[in-house]
Each structure stands twice: as structure tokens, then as C-alpha cells.
């Protein structure tokens, strides 16, 4: 009994020893990934001069940077705008795309499969190509500087529909039949069965959509041309546009712009990984 245990232990340590290069590589890559973010947080607590001189450690100037940021820019207005745009887009987009994915996979026939193939072509349409026509459309509809103008172009994306369609492959069809026999309506199947069962796909889709909406820059720059409607990425871009940049204040703004997406990622991290795993099959 003792001998196998011993070899097991020896095996274990040789395995770990063989993994040392892997650990070193991963530590270097992780450091390169995380260092700019840690530095951003520490810089937001230092004066512009300290940042320029290359100070790495945390300072005591955070409150002053924050006060300067609030006095120079409409921070809360931009935070509120970004939050509204991102939340509305995430909720509406998840509903529309999951409903489509549900329809395409669980009610599929030849016609629907062909239509899906056509919709996938929209993946190739670049944003810059549709920017001018969409701007004209939004201005005719009176949607400039509104949440509608912001969300409409990216409410339905082929990527999300594809993700829901692919993840629906494992959906239990016999359960669906049983529910029908029990008298559940078609839309009832969607809300009562599909949505709860597909939780992790919804989580993954929510992380991706929220990040894309919060971080969007090109389209908001086109459709939101009034200061009151501006988003966080636009606000921090303004902070760095002048000749003399206050780095402490800038990094404080960047910190505020990064916090919401980080929170969403950390809260939904586990479901995010599960949802993506379902999608790549």
C-alpha cells in the first residue's frame, strides 16, 4: 500500500517540475497583462508630475484627482449615460437574439437554415461601411443623442444569434414535447423552459454584450454629438485631447470607465466560461 503512494508522490513532483517552464511563461504573460491595469490604479492616486517621473507606488492624491475630474467633466452624467445604454442594449439584445436562436434551432427547417446562412453574411459588414447610412437614418428618425440611436444598430448581431443557436443543440426536445402535451404554449416554452435552462449562455452573452456596449467608441462618436449624451469612453478620450494632460486625473477617469465592466466580468466569470464552452462545439 505504501509503495504506490510513494511513486505517486514522486510522479507528482516530477510532473510539477516539468511544468516549471509553463509556470514561468504564464507568470510573465499574466504580469504583462495585469501590470498596465495595476499601474493605472496607482497612477490615479498620484499627481501628474509623480506619474510623469515614473512613480509606481500608490500615492495620496486620489481624492484631489477625483475632485478635479468631477469639476472638469460631467463624470456622473457620462457614467449614467453609459450605464443606461449598456443595460438597455444588453437586456434587449439578449431577448431578441436568444429568441431568434431558439427559433432557428428548435423549430428548424430548410427555409430557416437558409435564412440563417444569409444572416451570417452580416458578420462581414464592417461598421465603418454602415456608419454614414445609419447616421442619416438615425437623424431622419430623430434618434441622434438618444438611447435608441445608440442601441438600434447593434441590437441583433449574427454572432449572438449563432451562439444561442449552437448552444440550443443540447436542449432536451422530448421535454419540450412533454411540456406541449401538458398544455404549455409555444411562448411559454421559451420563457418557462428555455430561458432557465440556457442560463450560462445568457451569462456569457450578457458579459460580451455589456462590454461591447460600454466600451463602444466609433458609433457613439457618430450618433452622440451632444455633450450631455456622451459616454465614458468619450469622456476619457476628451481628457487626453488637450496639449497638457493631467495624468493623475486621466487615470482616475480611466479607472471609473473600467470598474463597471470589471465587476460584470468578475460576477459572471464562471457562467461566462461555461456559456462559451457550450458555444464552441
Amino acid at each position, binding site marked *: 500500500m505504501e509503495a504506490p503512494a510513494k511513486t505517486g508522490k514522486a510522479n507528482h513532483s516530477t*510532473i*510539477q517540475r516539468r511544468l516549471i517552464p*509553463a*509556470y514561468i*511563461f*504564464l507568470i510573465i*504573460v*499574466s504580469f504583462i*497583462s*495585469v501590470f*498596465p*491595469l495595476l*499601474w*493605472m490604479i496607482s497612477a490615479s492616486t498620484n499627481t501628474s508630475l509623480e506619474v*510623469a*517621473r*515614473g512613480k509606481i507606488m500608490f500615492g495620496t492624491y486620489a481624492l484631489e484627482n477625483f475632485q478635479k475630474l468631477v469639476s472638469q467633466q460631467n463624470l456622473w452624467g457620462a457614467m449614467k449615460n453609459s450605464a443606461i445604454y449598456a443595460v438597455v442594449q444588453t437586456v434587449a439584445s439578449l431577448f*431578441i*437574439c436568444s429568441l*431568434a436562436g*431558439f*427559433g432557428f434551432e*428548435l*423549430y*428548424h427547417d430548410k427555409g*430557416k437554415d437558409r*435564412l440563417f446562412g444569409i444572416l451570417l453574411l*452580416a*458578420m*462581414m*459588414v*464592417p*461598421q*465603418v*461601411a*454602415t*456608419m*454614414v*447610412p*445609419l447616421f442619416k437614418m438615425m437623424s431622419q428618425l430623430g434618434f441622434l443623442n438618444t438611447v435608441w440611436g445608440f442601441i*438600434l*444598430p447593434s*441590437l*441583433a*448581431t449574427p454572432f449572438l444569434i449563432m451562439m444561442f443557436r449552437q448552444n440550443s443543440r443540447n436542449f432536451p426536445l422530448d421535454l419540450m414535447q412533454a411540456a406541449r402535451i401538458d398544455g404549455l404554449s*409555444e411562448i411559454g416554452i421559451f420563457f418557462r423552459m428555455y430561458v432557465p435552462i440556457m442560463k450560462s449562455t445568457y451569462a456569457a452573452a450578457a458579459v460580451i454584450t455589456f462590454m461591447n456596449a*460600454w*466600451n463602444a*467608441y*466609433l458609433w457613439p462618436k457618430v450618433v452622440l454629438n451632444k455633450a450631455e449624451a456622451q459616454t465614458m*469612453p468619450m469622456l*476619457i*478620450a476628451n481628457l487626453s485631447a488637450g496639449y497638457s494632460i493631467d*495624468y493623475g486625473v486621466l487615470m482616475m477617469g*480611466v479607472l471609473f470607465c473600467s470598474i463597471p465592466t*470589471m465587476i460584470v466580468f468578475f460576477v459572471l466569470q464562471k457562467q461566462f*466560461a461555461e456559456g*462559451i*464552452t457550450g458555444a*464552441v462545439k
Partner: protein
Amino acid sequence: MKANHGTLLAKQRRAGWAYLMPGTLLITIMSFIPIINAVITSLKTGSSDNMQWAEPLFYNYTRILKDQLFQRSMVNTFLYLIIEVPIMLILAMLLAQLLNNHDLKFKGFFRTCVFLPCATSLVSYSLIFKSLFATEGLINTVLVKLGILETNYNFLGNPTSAKVIIIALIWRWTGYNMVFFLAGLQNIDYSVYEAAKIDGASGWQTFWKITVPLLRPTIVMTAIMSINGTLQLFDESVNLTNGGPANSTITMSHYIYNNSFGQGVANFGYASAMSFIIFVMVAVLSFINMKVGDKRD
């Protein structure tokens, strides 16, 4: 009874179509119709409210051929694409294979670290890099202290070093792609890897002989997304260098934006013609990608 069954099926079929209608309509109105509009606009000239058919019709396209700035933006964009996409995808796959190793510890920690840059916005990341690489900034201070540089160097003021920094910035997407590869690997039976280990295959051999072939569908998908994204590079060019110095780092999307909404000109016809060129490039590259991805079967 049979008739009843038939109407039930018809009802189900109608429900199916109803579910996919909102998404289909939105994609049609927000992607397909605008791209057709863009093609029509590309054949017109004049300012936004007052556009007429161009004379000759392909005036905007012949103008592209003579526009050296557009050509420079195209060369820049392709430079970023050719250097960045292969390195990034191979690195992402390598990371995914390492993190898929069942003997590795702290997997979750490493995965979170590598993905974290993607949770921040591109604008944020660009501004962090802009501050780090400023003439008066951390990187310069460290390099001068180490004696590698004699005096502070204006990294973003030199076309070559500015381009290198933009390429370094696009590295932000490595973690994003890694998540898809990791997901792809988790659907592969791990015993394949254990068998390879017993047969004495090195990590490198396992990577090229097992990981890469088995991940082919995921590679095609991430390659299309990366190529598409790089051809539309905008945030980095605007926020890191503002296209400069002297437009030497400008990307195609940035140049098109300047022609339509920036710098006080609203040259919608010309901008549409240039954007149609990007559309054709994306379509051709995606098509090649799918064909190559299929062939090796």
C-alpha cells in the same frame, strides 16, 4: 384528430418564424440595407444634404487610386494585420493548451489575468499605453535609469516605434481569443492528451499535432473575427497617436471617419467608397479563411 395535429404543427411552424423575425428584420435594416445604401452613396458626390450622381460615375473610386493618404492607411492596417493576427492567435492557442493541462495549478488565476485587459475598454487601454509611453512617462524613466536610453525618447512621435506600440496594444485581444480556444479544448476528450504524453510527445509536438488540428473550426472563427476587427481598427489609432506623427500610423477606419465626421468635412460619397473597399477586403479574406479551414479535412 389528424387535422388537429396538422394545425398544431402549423402553429408551431408559425411560432418558429415569429421568434426569428425581430432579429432578422433588425439585421436587414441595420446591416444589409445600409451596406446597399453605402454602395449607392459611393457613386455620388457633394455634401450631405445635397448629393448628386458622380460624373463620371466611378469618380470616388478613381480618386481612391490617387489618394496617397488612403493608400498609406491601407498599408498601415495590413501591416498591423499581418504581424498581429498570426502571433496573437498562436499565442492564444498556446496559452489555452497550457491552461487546459489538468496538472497545472492556479489555472483560474492565470486565466483571469490574461483575460482582464479585455474587460477594460480599448479607449482606456490606449490611454494607459499613451501615458506609459509618454516622453515623460514610466517606460522612459525606467529605460533611462537602466542606462538603455541616454535621454527621454518620444516613442509616440516616431512612426516606427508608434506602430510597434499600436501592435503591442492589439495584443489586448489575446485573452479574448484564448477563452474561445480554451472552450474548444474543453470539448476535446482529454484522454487524447494523456495518450500523447504516454507516447512521449513533447509539449510542442502535442501543440502542432493535436491542439491545432482539433481546434480548426475555432481557429477559423477567431481568425475571421480578428481579421475583421483589425481591418476596422479605430480606437487605438485615434486615442494613442491620433494617426500621427503626420498621419504615419493612421488606419483605414480612422481616415474614413475623418472624411465623414471629423475635421469639419462631410465627404459622405468618398467615405462610402473607401468603406466599400474595406467591406470587399473583409469578405474576400473571410471567404479564403473558410475555404482554407475546410480544405484540410
